[in-house]
């Protein structure tokens, strides 16, 4: 074993920084999954009949589906009947201000460095914090509502804007889409809803912090973003989860709808508990994210920094239906220890003169496996479609793996599709050069990795970019190779 691998061995044994949980009383569903549970959830949330029916239909569909097995990941089969499908902090009345919020909750945010108090003051970020399944605090609502922007929890949207929810729910990711999306549709607990009216440019970054805090609770977030004609919104989602011994399932669905000339930027920093250094525990993150550029000249841009989860299965995609519409995917996916990530994107060109850009930066350390899976599809009527894909892999040490699976399907001869891929290792030369200038190895790794991922990090809003850089450094602490 080389010296670098020894260092790697010693130092990757860092424990997860956000690994703790606070005991809280919860109000939860009985264990297992059946029609009664779904009815119970729906009743608990005081949902209208149509939504209950939608859930039940999704449940039926799901029952007939099989768990997908094509991803380059392996994990023990999840016993979905052993999970609980709803849990909410036990506080019957919704708080009106932060003062009314359970101090224990506030403490969690503080320890994560994202206290609402602080966030409220900071640079105009509206925060809709989701703890477990129910929103516990929403700020800046007033400013937003003056512009006609709706930004609230999904449950609230169901109550206050049922016509919007009914119109768009499942319109981008239908219940039949895939196994996890169907499951989510049946049992989704809560999430965020965002509506930007025509012509409105959302004046602040919208952000939501997700966090799992109840053992054995499957998490099924549902997010729906609708951007009407000529509107603009930048939406941020970030999460960290407490350490657990059992694997936790997270199967979220995010749907984005962009009308003519609308632009939606969706950024994620994902840091679910990845499992300990022996590969024990950790979150299973099986997410379906898709946006449709429905109108001409619309644009959807996904940026993700994926550092967490034991197993990640996630392909934020764009359906480029409108002519001249643009889809972008910028991703940094880091895996360490025994993590497995199979992530990428799909760009489906339907409209004329549609463009897509894919920049994927994989970083693998420890004994992890990191796969990029991307599909570029150009349909018959998509004249002059353009795609550029750049897929880079950075390896740290020699026990990890990086894999690239590009799928290209072109049905229109005018299409121009470019694909570039590189694989590199953090060089001893680079590390020594940094050391020789007085930079410690850990900081050198952080510097080199952040440089490597720069093109993606640059896409993030400023304050998120700084957090993301710290997160990358933290995740890779000691992974020299």
């Amino acid at each position: 074993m080389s010296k670098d691998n020894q260092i790697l061995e010693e130092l990757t044994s860092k424990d997860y920084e956000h690994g703790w949980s606070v005991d809280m009383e919860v109000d939860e569903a009985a264990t297992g999954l059946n029609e009664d549970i779904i009815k119970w959830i729906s009743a608990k949330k005081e949902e209208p009949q149509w939504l209950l029916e939608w859930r039940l239909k999704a449940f039926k569909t799901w029952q007939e589906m099989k768990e997908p097995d094509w991803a380059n990941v392996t994990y023990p089969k999840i016993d979905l009947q052993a999970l609980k499908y709803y849990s909410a902090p036990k506080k019957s009345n919704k708080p009106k201000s932060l003062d009314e919020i359970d101090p224990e909750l506030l403490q969690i945010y503080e320890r994560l460095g994202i206290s609402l108090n602080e966030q409220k003051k900071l640079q105009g970020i509206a925060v809709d914090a989701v703890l477990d399944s129910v929103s516990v605090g929403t700020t800046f609502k007033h400013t937003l509502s003056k512009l006609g922007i709706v930004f609230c929890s999904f449950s609230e949207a169901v109550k206050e804007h049922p016509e919007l929810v009914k119109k768009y729910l499942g319109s981008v990711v239908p219940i039949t889409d895939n196994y996890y999306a169907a499951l989510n549709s049946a049992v989704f607990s809560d999430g965020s809803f965002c509506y930007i009216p025509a012509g409105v440019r959302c004046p602040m970054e919208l952000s939501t912090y997700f966090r799992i805090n109840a053992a054995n609770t499957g998490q099924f977030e549902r997010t729906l973003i609708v951007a009407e004609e000529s509107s603009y919104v930048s939406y941020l989602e970030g999460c960290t989860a407490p350490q657990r011994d059992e694997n936790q399932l997270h199967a979220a669905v995010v749907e984005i709808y962009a009308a003519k000339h609308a632009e939606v930027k969706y950024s994620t920093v994902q840091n679910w508990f990845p499992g300990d250094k022996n590969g024990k525990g950790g979150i299973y993150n099986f997410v379906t994210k898709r946006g449709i550029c429905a109108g001409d000249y619309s644009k959807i841009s996904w940026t993700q920094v994926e550092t967490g989860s034991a197993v990640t299965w996630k392909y934020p995609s764009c359906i480029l239906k409108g002519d001249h519409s643009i889809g972008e995917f910028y991703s940094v996916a880091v895996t360490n220890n025994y993590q497995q990530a199979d992530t990428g994107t799909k760009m489906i060109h339907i409209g004329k003169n549609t463009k897509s850009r894919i920049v994927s930066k994989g970083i693998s350390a420890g004994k992890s496996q990191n796969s990029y899976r991307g599909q570029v599809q150009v349909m018959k009527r998509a004249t002059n479609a353009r795609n550029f894909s750049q897929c880079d892999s950075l390896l740290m040490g020699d026990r990890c793996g990086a894999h690239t699976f590009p799928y290209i399907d072109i049905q229109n001869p005018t299409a121009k599709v470019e694909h570039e891929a590189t694989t590199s290792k953090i060089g001893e030369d680079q590390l020594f050069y940094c050391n020789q200038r007085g930079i410690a190895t850990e900081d050198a790794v952080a510097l080199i990795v952040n440089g490597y991922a720069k093109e993606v990090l640059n896409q993030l809003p400023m304050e998120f970019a700084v957090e993301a850089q710290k997160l990358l450094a933290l995740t890779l602490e000691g992974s020299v190779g």
Partner: protein
Amino acid sequence: MLTIKNLHASIEGTPILKGINLEVKPGEVHAIMGPNGSGKSTLASVLAGREEYEVTEGEVSFKGKNLLDLSPEDRAREGVFLAFQYPVEIPGVSSTNFLRTAVNQVREYRGLESLDAVKFLSIMKEKMKLVEIDQKLLSRSLNEGFSGGEKKRNEIFQMAMLEPTLSILDETDSGLDIDALRIVSNGVNQLKTSENATIVVTHYQRLLDYIVPDFVHVLYNGRIVKSGTKELALELEEKGYDWIKEEADAASV
């Protein structure tokens, strides 16, 4: 300041340095010359703490400390600077950002407070003048796509920023055009004080017209086989290495 005693070092089991002795005092400039493959860069790397090289025998003390006990970064923080013969490229990291990290880590080690962006920039501006380096170059990714000469100039700029006590310049002159050679040498000379010392590794006596050495050593086959004053460099320029090799080979039989 630097005392090297009977230093032996090998790489992957192959001995390269075979008993180096050298004493460098504050304020001195030492030139090390010698044929290709004689071990000049190896000596520089061993002093800087490159882990691939195994020190099999001998001692190195620097400012009274056992240099060989220190990690590469601590050697740098103690004031050892190596201008690389082949500077490394780091994509996506600007020279500015890189240097700021370096300078602040060195300062922290020395118990100084870290420089804020404004202070750092003003020091940078001042040092940029010294080697006439363009700001644009410094905002680009470190050494990526730099010309050979630009890389070398950037090394000396970094040296200016880090203010080392012992600078080892490994063939900094190769790749520099005539004007750049003068500018870079000027920079090195201006950084010279009575407290610090410089070791210049070079093949060309021309550099020594600019950076005038107090001593010239010839490294051959892992040993310093001849030492003298700057006149030795002139002699080498004229006669080449054969006569020294013969002398040395005869002595070692």
